[in-house]
């Protein structure tokens, strides 16, 4: 049998067996994960996603790779805000892909206009709803790959358009960009880990080495940290590059100096890696990613089985975990609501103060203007005042929205802290029900969904967006499935100031002054009332979401505790242990087999070492 034929056969077998195992323990969600990988539409060329936090130098790196300085707009004053898809073409050209109502519109744009559509310069926060800008360029590296430049994640203003984990997990290969200024951070590592559970070909690039004399130590630290905190990433290549040196090389006349600079830039190595291991290997990368996904599921199931054994043997770990979670819940429940109330009160206070201050300034400004004004200008002054008041209201709303978002982010961060234990309890209750033959409490995937739902519900209330839209666009930062809601909590965004009194007789300066005073007073009243109403709604919604979540968790935990007791006292204990141990043996074998097939396929990451679940 040919090598390729054998690989194909073993590939099918290992995937099917994995799916069988998932089915056997009722984890349809894991089956869905693998299925999603297999069902993805085929592409001729692998899609390489350039991911990383904001300001790491992704666009400069892309330009250096393409040997085309400035093609993806980059600079200290702007950031990429929409996806840029680079593929090969004999002539350079750009096509804008944009949402027009429910339709998708495509139209050519000049290369010089890319910044207008794809950066914070002309399109901050992707307010122009650009789906992508497709760029053709005559670059050797594009011969067999499509390169996607992305808005960075991890910044304050990058939440909405930034690349989330789910997006990166769909790429064929990911180039993750760090810079030589500081070692890989916690959020970056979380991102990498999550992506590498779905994508085999992950390359880490440390940029800006020309600018940081300590780059070698930082790069070494990065390798060390990846190996230590994410063993599955231990074999990921870490390349050190300088886009700036590459740019200097390209700016020179071809010759020995230019060649030397190009070598020094480290771009050669990256390009070679992409050409040899990624380019033209679309189906291979796909297959590898399916296996990586299956292996991730197998590890989850294995962890569950281990817990099942522990539970059946009456080991205290499971019980302790359940009890610890209950205690925590009790403590945190009241803390959350206190924090929330305090936070909301503060948002209100700040809004009130800022409103008073802002209107005071407007008043002073207008009284001053009126004193110097001519009669025929009065009408325009009155119009401008109304505009200014509305602008002030909108700006304050935005500020309040941001503060609220920060509050939600803080509280969700606490949910995350708890989620580590959550996972244990999830596994415990699942394990207990599997091996104790008791009705299962709740599937982990279901519960996650409801949690996101709740938060999504909150966002939708305040931003006016549909829940479904939000759920898919939820920017995921610093964790797995943890929504941190960014901008767009438009508390009061639709507020519009209404004049109370007509503006007859404004031609007299004193009349106009009195009118301004009246409008300012009325604006204060209206804006405060409007904002107050919205905040009451916001508070109610948040409180409901929180209470609901806590109630549900309590019920689940009670059920889990009951099941635990039942299992430990049950007669089928021995059988349960035997069955779980047999399953673990099977799964370990399957994981080994997966690793072997990955090696056989020539997968990007050499098979991970002995697998240990953290």
């Amino acid at each position: 049998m040919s090598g390729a034929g054998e690989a194909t056969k073993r590939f099918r077998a290992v995937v099917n067996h994995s799916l069988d195992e998932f089915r056997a323990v009722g984890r349809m969600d894991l089956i869905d994960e693998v299925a999603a990988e297999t069902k993805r539409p085929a592409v001729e060329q692998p899609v390489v996603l350039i991911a990383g936090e904001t300001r790491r130098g992704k666009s400069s790196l892309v330009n250096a790779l393409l040997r085309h300085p400035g093609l993806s707009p980059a600079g200290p004053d702007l950031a990429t805000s929409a996806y840029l898809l680079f593929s090969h073409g004999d002539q350079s050209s750009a096509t804008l892909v944009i949402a027009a109502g429910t339709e998708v519109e495509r139209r050519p744009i000049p290369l010089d206009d890319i910044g207008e559509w794809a950066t914070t310069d002309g399109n901050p926060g992707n307010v122009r709803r650009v789906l992508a800008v497709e760029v053709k360029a005559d670059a050797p590296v594009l011969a067999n790959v499509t390169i996607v430049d992305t808005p960075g994640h991890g910044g304050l203003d990058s939440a909405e358009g930034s690349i989330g984990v789910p997006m990166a997990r769909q790429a064929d290969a990911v180039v993750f960009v760090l810079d030589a200024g500081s070692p890989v951070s916690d959020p970056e590592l979380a991102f990498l880990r999550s992506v590498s559970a779905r994508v085999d070909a992950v390359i880490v690039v440390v940029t800006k080495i020309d600018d940081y004399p300590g780059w070698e130590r930082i790069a070494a630290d990065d390798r060390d940290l990846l190996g230590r905190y994410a063993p599955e990433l231990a074999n990921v290549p870490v390349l050190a590059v300088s886009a700036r040196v590459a740019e200097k090389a390209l700016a020179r006349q071809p010759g020995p100096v230019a060649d030397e600079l190009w070598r020094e830039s480290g771009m050669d190595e990256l390009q070679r890696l992409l050409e040899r291991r990624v380019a033209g290997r679309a189906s291979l990368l796909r297959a590898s990613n399916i296996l990586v996904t299956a292996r991730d599921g197998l590890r989850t199931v294995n962890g569950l089985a281990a817990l099942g054994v522990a539970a059946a043997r009456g080991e205290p770990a499971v019980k302790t975990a359940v009890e610890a979670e209950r205690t925590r819940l009790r403590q945190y429940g009241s803390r959350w609501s206190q924090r929330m109330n305090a936070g909301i009160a503060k948002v209100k206070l700040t809004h009130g103060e800022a409103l008073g201050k802002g209107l005071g300034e407007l008043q002073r400004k207008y009284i001053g203007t009126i004193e110097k004004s001519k009669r025929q200008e009065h009408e325009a002054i009155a119009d401008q005042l109304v505009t200014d008041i509305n602008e002030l209201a909108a700006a304050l709303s935005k500020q309040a929205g941001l503060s609220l978002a920060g509050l939600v982010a803080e509280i969700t961060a606490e949910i995350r802290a708890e989620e580590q234990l959550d996972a244990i309890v999830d596994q415990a209750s699942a394990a207990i029900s599997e091996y104790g033959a008791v009705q299962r409490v709740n599937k982990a995937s279901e519960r996650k969904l409801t949690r996101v739902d709740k938060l999504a519900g909150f966002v939708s209330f305040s931003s006016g967006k549909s829940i479904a839209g939000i759920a898919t666009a939820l920017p995921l930062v610093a964790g797995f499935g943890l929504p941190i809601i960014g901008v767009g909590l438009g508390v009061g965004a639709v507020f519009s100031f209404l004049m109370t009194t007509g503006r007859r007789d404004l031609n007299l300066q004193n009349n106009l002054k009195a009118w301004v005073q009246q409008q300012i007073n009325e604006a204060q009243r209206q804006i405060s009332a409007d904002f107050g109403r919205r905040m009451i709604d916001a508070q109610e919604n948040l409180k409901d979401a929180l209470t609901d979540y806590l109630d549900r968790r309590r019920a689940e935990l009670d059920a889990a505790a009951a099941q635990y007791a039942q299992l430990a006292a049950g007669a089928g204990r021995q059988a349960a242990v035997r069955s779980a141990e047999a399953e673990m043996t099977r799964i370990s074998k399957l994981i080994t087999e997966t690793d072997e097939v990955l090696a056989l396929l020539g997968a990007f990451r050499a098979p991970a070492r002995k697998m240990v679940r953290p």
Partner: protein
Amino acid sequence: MTSSTPEDPSQPAPVTFRPLGAVIDAVVALADQAMLTVTGPTQAELTRIRDALREPVRIAVAGRVNAGKSTLVNALVGQVVAPTDVSECTRLVTWYRYGSPQRLEIVMRDGSRRRERLGSGASLPATLGIEHDQVRCLEVWLANDTLRSMTLIDTPGLGSLNADYSTATEELLAMGHASAEAIATADALVYIFNNDVRPDEVAALRSFRESSGGLGGAAGNAIGVLSKADKIGSGPDWWDAAERKAKQLAEQLGDDIVSMLPLVGLTAQTAEGAQLTEPDAQHLADLAVMAEEDLELLLISGQRFIAGSEARGRLLKLLELQGITTTIELIREGITGAAPLRAELAERSGIGALRTVINETFRGKGERLKIRSALQAIERLCSVPDTDPDATPLRAVADQSERLQLSPLLHQLAEAEALALSVAGVVPLPDELAADVRRIGSGLTPAEQLGVPGGDPAALRGAALAGSARWRAALVASSPAQARLAQVIRRSYTLAYQEVQA
């Protein structure tokens, strides 16, 4: 760079606060006197209150790993004391205090202290030889002028993979839980950013703000520093790029910070810490006369620059590429010798502007906050049941405290607070009245407070009466906050009148 920009006429002159030394002395005297009459535990509490008053404003320096926190501490102190690499000590909260003999004190979790000697050049040792989790913090005592007026707290990086770092800093900044102890820990915060603001950094700033209460709900005790200003843009207008970035980040952060300043931290450390020596200056002078083409090739990257030259390796460590480029420019402009170059580099690093902002923002406010909290602490201490053994002496202390608070001396504190509220825009006032508050809050003599140069008694009396009338009128048509402020200022005019009469 901050190349001696002329004063911007659109910007108002910086506000100066009248020093409150006399007020502090009075409160310290009160505590001292009270101490004589009470028993052990109460005495200890009074000692703590008094000592906190005498301590300079405590400024925490925080930011992500490798953001340049220790570099900034070194630049401010003017000597390289804080280790800037990833050594053991950068994982511990370290206090830099004024004191002699110069020494290191290791504060253990159980409260005990170990005294160690500092290394050569008063630097921290690379290792301590003690288990980390037993150490609460380090205290470095230095006979250093800067530390006379501020205590600096260097913190481990936030957002780090090493849980040690982040937890120690979160504790210090009281993230999440505003415990009373943490409030007592830092009066002000300098937060270091590199080129962007991350959500975890906003959370850190917010929780600091929450824990420290702020003045009348306004922020004002945190400033941001864009500490690697040389890494933002490139080319000749790199400083402008840094300034624009600083402005943009400041806008994003809103009132979580007072201001955001660009700084080339490493250059500041090298210049202020006198690290640049004559031989270094000579090497730089040699570079300045190199052929343009050769120099340009050399300065393309750090690796190229140091290839085969130890001296250049040292220069790169001291200044990095942008600093070297700047120094070469300076030499070509005719500045030679290590000391003049250091002075000019310090100026261009942005450290001077940062010092000014720190002084303006924190020092006066530190005093105000400390006096208020000391008075409150004394008041709390005095409210004991009759059964308390110290009840009788404490009643006397309470009486004294009340008398002190009603005295003209303590009115200075109220004036300073009023000025702070007005300047921060918390209590908006018409321009004329705002100018009054400014004079009252910063003037050192009745003449300055009343804005009557020369000090003719009749003119002073007239000004005091007019001021009093003006503020009586202001009292009528105003918000409650304005009314409270108006009462304070009106009393100032009355007191000034009495002083002139006497």
